[in-house]
C-alpha cells in the first residue's frame, strides 16, 4: 500500500508536469528567458495583438477574453518556478532514491525530461539557462545563504588553507588545463579546431573553478567532518575572485590578440586580481555593516526589517558587479559580516523569517538552476562533439585537481596544527565539482572572438554533468569506503562514545582555563576592537548591555533565588523538578521499550514491575533470564544504550552549528543543554556550599528560564546561563564526599553577610523574573529586575509560604 502511494504520486506528478509544459509550449509563448527568441516574440505578440484587435472590433463587446499576451512573461516565470518545485516534490517523495542519487542529479535528469518534452513540442529549445537570468536572479540568493549560514569561527581559523586552495589551486587548475589542452591540440589529438593558446587558457579559467552550488548539493548528504567540508566549501566560494579575474583578463587578451600582450598587461592582470578580490570583499563588508546599522534602527518596523537583509545583500552583489569586482565575494562577505549583528538586533521572529526565507530562496534557486542545466542540454543547435576535446578535458580536470590538492596540502601540513589527512585530501580532490557557474561563464563567451564557443559550452555541460551526477552518486560510497572521518562519529563501544564526549568537554575546559583561544594576540585585538567599536555602532545598545551584563546580573539574581528556594526543597523530598523529570523520562522510555520488548519477551516486563510500581525499568542483564532470550536482550539493550547515549549526551560547545545544510533548519538545541549543565553545576556547588555550615539554610539552585523553552515544565526553577560570581565561596564537586569543611572559606565575611542579607528573598519575584529571556525584547525585564532587587531588599519575608507563587510561574 505504501508503494502504491508512491507510484500514484509519481504518476500524478509526471502527468501534471507534462500537462503544464505542453500547455506552456503549446501557447507558443516565447519567454523572456531566452534572449535569442526575444525579437521573435515581439513581432509575434504584435501580430497577435493586431489579430485580437481586428477580431474584437468585428464581433462586438467580448464578455471574456483570453488575454494570454497580457500576462505572458510573469505567467511563464511563475509556471517554471512551479514546475521546478513540483519536480522537487516528486523527487523527494522517495527517500530510498535520494539517499543513493543526490537530489541535484535527479533534478538534472528531470530537466532532461522536460527539455525533451519542450523540444518535442517546439523543435527548438525555447527555454535555456541564460547568463543574465543565472547571474542576476538565480545565483545571488544561493551565495547569500552560504555567507549568512557560514560558521565564521571555523572559516576564519582555516582561512589560510582556504585561501591557498582558492587562489593557488584555481590558478594551477586553469593554467595546467589550458596548457595541456593546447599541447594536445598541437599534438593533433583534437582534430581541426580553431582555438589558439589564449582561448585554451580562457577555457581553462572558466572551467577551473570549483562551484559552490554543486559542492553544497553533493556534500550536504555526505556529512564529512567539518574541517574537510569547510575547506572545500570555503574554497568554492573564494575562488570566484580568481575566476573573475582570470576570465576577464584572458577575455581581454583574446580580444587584444596575442601580439599586444607584454609585461605591462600581465602586471596589470596581477594587480587586477588584488583589486577585484579585495575590492569585492570590501564592498561586501561595507554592505554588511550597512545592514547591521539599518537593523539597529528598525525597532518600529519589525514587520519588514527582514526585507532589508535581502535587499541590501542583493545590492552588494549588483554593486560589485557594477564595479567589475567579484560579486560572489561581495555577497559572501556581506552575509558573513552581518550575521552576528542582525541576529542580535532583530526581533526573534524576524531572525527566524530571515533564516527561513534565505533557505527558501537558496533551495528554490538551486532547484531551478539544476533543472535548467538539464533542459539546456536538449538543444540540437548547440551540440558540437569532439571526442578528443571533451575526453581530454574531463581527464585533465580530474587529474590536475588531485595533483593540485596533494601538492598544496603537503605544503600546508607543514604549518598546520592538525594536518589534513590523506583520506581527506582524496575526498577534497574528488570533491572538486564544477557546476552552473562554469556553464554561465561559458555562455557569456563572445562568439565572434571565439569561434568554437559551442564546443566549449558543450564540453562545460558534459563536465558539469559528469561531476554532479557521476561524482555526486559515487561520493557517498567513496566516503564510506575510505572511512572518512564523518561529522557524527559512529562509535563502536559505549566507553568510546562516552570518552569521546569527555574529551570534547575536557579540551574545551582546558582551553578556557589556559586561555589559549582568548590570548591569541590578533584575535584578542580583533575581539576588543569589535567589542568596543563595532558593537557599539552596529548593535542595539540594549542588546549590547545584555551580552555584557547578563551573566553577572543573572547570577546574582539566581543566587538570591536559590537561597529562598531552600524551604521548598527541604519541605518535600520530591520537588517539582524530580517529579517532572521522571515523568517525561518515563514516557519516552515506555514508548521506546514497549514495542521492542513485547516482541522478544512478553513475560519479562510483567515480572519486573514489582518494586517500581508501574514503571518498566530497563531489564538489566543481571536479572535471571532465559539463556536464549538473553542474547536478544543484550543486543537490544546494546542498541538502546547506544541510542540513549547518542540522544542524551551533552554535545559540548564545539560541536554545534557546524553542519551547513541546505535543507535543514536547526533550531538551537544546545541552549537547553547549556542551561541544564549550568543548573547542575550551580546546584552542586551550592550543595557543597551548604555544608560549610554558615548558619544559612542550605540552598538549592534554581536558575532562570532564559531562552525559549516554554515547553519545559519546570520553568520557574529552570535554567540560567551565567558565569561565576567569584566573591562567593564555592566548592566543586570533585572533593570526594559532600562538603569537606575548609575553614578558609568560612572566614569570608562578605558573602555570609550578603547571604544573610539576601536570604529573605521572596520567590514572588520569581514570577517577574520567569519570563526573562536573553533576547532583545526582554532586556527591559532586566531593568525591572534590577530595580525590583533594590526595592525588595527592604522587605524581608520568609519564603516558606510562597510556593504558590512559585508554582504559578
Amino acid at each position, binding site marked *: 500500500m505504501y508503494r502504491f502511494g508512491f507510484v500514484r504520486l509519481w504518476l500524478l506528478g509526471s502527468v501534471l508536469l507534462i500537462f503544464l509544459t505542453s500547455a506552456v509550449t503549446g501557447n507558443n509563448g516565447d519567454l523572456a528567458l531566452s534572449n535569442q527568441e526575444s525579437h521573435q516574440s515581439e513581432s509575434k505578440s504584435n501580430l497577435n495583438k493586431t489579430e485580437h484587435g481586428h477580431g474584437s472590433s468585428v464581433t462586438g463587446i467580448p464578455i471574456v477574453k483570453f488575454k494570454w499576451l497580457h500576462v505572458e512573461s510573469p505567467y511563464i516565470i511563475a509556471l517554471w518556478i512551479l514546475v521546478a518545485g513540483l519536480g522537487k516534490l516528486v523527487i523527494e517523495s522517495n527517500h530510498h532514491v535520494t539517499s543513493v542519487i543526490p537530489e541535484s542529479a535527479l533534478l538534472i535528469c528531470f530537466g532532461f525530461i522536460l527539455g525533451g518534452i519542450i523540444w518535442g513540442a517546439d523543435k527548438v529549445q525555447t527555454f535555456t539557462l541564460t547568463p543574465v537570468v543565472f547571474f542576476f536572479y538565480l545565483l545571488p540568493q544561493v551565495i547569500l545563504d552560504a555567507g549568512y549560514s557560514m560558521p565564521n569561527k571555523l572559516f576564519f581559523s582555516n582561512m589560510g588553507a582556504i585561501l591557498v586552495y582558492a587562489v593557488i589551486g584555481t590558478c594551477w587548475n586553469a593554467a595546467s588545463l589550458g596548457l595541456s589542452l593546447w599541447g594536445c591540440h598541437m599534438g593533433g589529438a583534437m582534430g581541426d579546431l580553431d582555438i589558439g593558446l589564449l582561448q585554451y587558457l580562457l577555457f581553462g579559467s572558466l572551467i577551473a573553478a570549483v562551484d559552490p552550488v554543486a559542492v553544497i548539493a553533493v556534500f550536504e548528504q555526505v556529512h564529512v567532518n567539518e574541517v574537510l567540508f569547510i575547506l572545500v566549501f570555503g574554497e568554492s566560494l573564494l575562488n570566484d575572485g580568481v575566476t573573475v579575474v582570470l576570465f576577464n583578463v584572458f577575455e581581454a587578451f583574446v580580444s587584444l590578440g596575442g601580439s599586444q600582450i607584454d609585461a605591462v598587461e600581465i602586471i596589470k592582470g596581477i594587480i587586477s586580481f588584488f583589486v577585484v578580490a579585495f575590492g569585492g570583499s570590501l564592498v561586501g563588508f561595507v554592505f554588511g555593516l550597512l545592514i547591521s546599522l539599518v537593523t539597529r534602527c528598525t525597532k518600529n518596523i519589525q514587520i519588514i526589517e527582514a526585507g532589508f537583509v535581502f535587499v541590501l545583500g542583493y545590492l552588494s552583489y549588483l554593486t560589485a558587479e557594477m564595479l567589475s569586482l567579484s560579486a560572489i565575494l561581495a555577497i559572501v562577505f556581506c552575509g558573513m559580516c552581518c550575521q552576528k549583528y542582525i541576529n542580535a538586533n532583530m526581533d526573534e521572529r524576524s531572525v527566524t523569517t530571515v533564516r527561513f526565507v534565505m533557505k527558501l530562496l537558496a533551495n528554490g534557486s538551486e532547484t531551478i538552476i539544476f533543472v535548467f542545466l538539464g533542459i539546456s542540454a536538449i538543444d540540437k543547435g548547440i551540440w558540437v562533439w569532439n571526442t578528443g576535446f571533451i575526453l581530454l578535458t574531463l581527464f585533465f580536470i580530474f587529474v590536475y585537481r588531485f595533483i593540485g590538492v596533494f601538492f598544496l596540502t603537503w605544503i600546508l601540513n607543514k604549518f598546520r*596544527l*592538525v594536518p589534513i589527512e590523506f583520506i581527506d585530501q582524496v575526498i577534497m580532490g574528488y570533491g572538486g565539482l564544477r557546476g552552473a557557474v562554469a556553464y554561465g561563464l561559458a555562455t557569456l563567451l563572445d562568439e565572434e572572438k571565439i569561434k568554437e564557443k559551442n564546443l566549449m559550452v558543450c564540453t562545460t555541460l558534459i563536465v558539469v554533468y559528469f561531476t554532479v551526477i557521476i561524482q555526486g552518486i559515487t561520493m557517498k560510497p567513496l566516503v564510506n569506503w575510505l572511512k572518512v572521518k564523518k561529522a557524527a562519529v559512529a562509535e*563502536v563501544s*559505549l*566507553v*568510546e562514545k*562516552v*570518552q569521546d*564526549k*569527555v*574529551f570534547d*568537554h*575536557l*579540551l*574545551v*575546559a*582546558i*582551553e*578556557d*582555563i*589556559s586561555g*589559549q583561544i582568548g*590570548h*591569541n594576540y590578533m584575535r584578542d585585538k580583533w575581539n576588543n576592537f569589535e567589542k568596543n567599536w563595532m558593537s557599539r555602532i552596529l548593535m542595539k545598545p540594549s542588546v549590547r548591555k545584555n551580552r555584557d551584563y547578563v551573566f553577572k546580573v543573572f547570577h546574582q539574581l539566581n543566587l538570591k533565588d536559590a537561597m529562598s528556594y531552600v524551604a521548598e526543597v527541604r519541605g518535600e523530598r520530591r520537588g517539582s523538578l524530580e517529579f517532572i*523529570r521522571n515523568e*517525561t*523520562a*518515563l514516557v519516552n*522510555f515506555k514508548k521506546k521499550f514497549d514495542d521492542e520488548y513485547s516482541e522478544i519477551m512478553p513475560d519479562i516486563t510483567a515480572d519486573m514491575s514489582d518494586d517500581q510500581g508501574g514503571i518498566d*525499568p*530497563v531489564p*538489566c542483564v543481571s536479572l535471571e533470564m532465559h539463556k536464549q532470550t538473553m542474547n536478544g536482550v543484550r543486543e537490544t*539493550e*546494546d542498541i*538502546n*544504550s547506544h541510542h*540513549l*547515549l547518542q540522544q*542524551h*549526551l*551533552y554535545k559540548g560547545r564545539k560541536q554545534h552549528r557546524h553542519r551547513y545544510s541546505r535543507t535543514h533548519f536547526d533550531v538551537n538545541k544546545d541552549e*537547553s*543543554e547549556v542551561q*541544564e*549543565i*549550568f543548573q*547542575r*553545576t550551580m546546584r552542586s*556547588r551550592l550543595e557543597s556550599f551548604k555544608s560549610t555550615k554558615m548558619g544559612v539554610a542550605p540552598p538549592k539552585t534554581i536558575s532562570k528560564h532564559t531562552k525559549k523553552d516554554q515547553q519545559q515544565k519546570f520553568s520557574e526553577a529552570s535554567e540560567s*546561563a*551565567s558565569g*561565576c560570581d*567569584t566573591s562567593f*565561596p*564555592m*566548592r*566543586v*564537586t*570533585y*572533593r570526594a564526599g559532600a562538603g569537606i569543611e575548609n575553614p578558609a572559606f568560612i572566614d569570608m565575611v562578605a558573602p555570609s553577610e550578603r547571604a544573610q542579607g539576601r536570604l529573605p528573598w521572596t520567590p514572588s519575584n520569581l514570577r517577574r523574573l520567569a519570563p526573562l529571556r536573553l533576547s532583545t525584547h526582554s532586556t527591559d525585564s532586566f531593568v525591572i529586575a534590577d530595580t525590583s532587587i533594590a526595592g525588595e531588599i527592604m522587605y524581608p519575608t520568609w519564603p516558606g509560604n510562597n510556593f504558590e507563587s512559585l508554582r504559578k510561574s
Partner: protein
Amino acid sequence: MGSSSSNMNHIPDAEELMQETGFSSAHLLRLYERFEFLDREKRGELSPDDFEAVGRLALNPIGGRIIGAFFSQGQETVDFASFVRILAHFRPADTNRRDGAPQDPANSQTRKLKFAFQLYDQDGDGMISRVELLQVLRAMMGIQVTEEQLQSIAERAIQEADLDRDDAISFDEFKKSLEKVNIDHKMSIRFLR
C-alpha cells in the same frame, strides 16, 4: 621578544619546566601571563575559586572534575609549576624527538590517557568502579535520562570494557577500549605564542 626575556626571570624554575614539559619559552610566558590573570589575589598560586572565575567552566558538565585534576591529592592550591605540568599533557605530540627530552614526556599517549582516566577515578584506587562511571555519566547526560537508564548504560559500558571480570575498569582495560581513538588528536590543543 626582548621584553619576554626579562619577564622570564619572574617565572620560577623556567628552564627546568621547559625541559620537563617541552614548552617553549614563548609558550611558558603566555601561560605565566594566564596564571597571573587567573590569580586574582596575587598569591602566586591558584585556588579552586580562581578556576571557577573562568565563567565558561560552569557550562561544562565535567568542569568540576577538571578543576579538581589540577589539585593533587589533598592540596588546596596549585602553583605555577603544577599548573604548567598539567597543561603539558595537552601539547600535541612531538613529531621529532629532541635530544634530551624526557623519556616519558607529559604529552605521550599513555600520560594523556592517564589524565583522562583520573577524571573518572576520583578515589585514586586505579580502577573505575561502577559508581564512579555512573557519576561521570550522570554529569554528562541530559536531565531527561532516568536513573535506571543510566545504570543500564553504566552496566553495559563496564561489560564491554571489563575484560577480567572484576566489575571495574582498570587503566589497561581503559587503554584497550580506546585503542581505536586517535588520542593525540582528541587531547591536544594548540598552544599559541
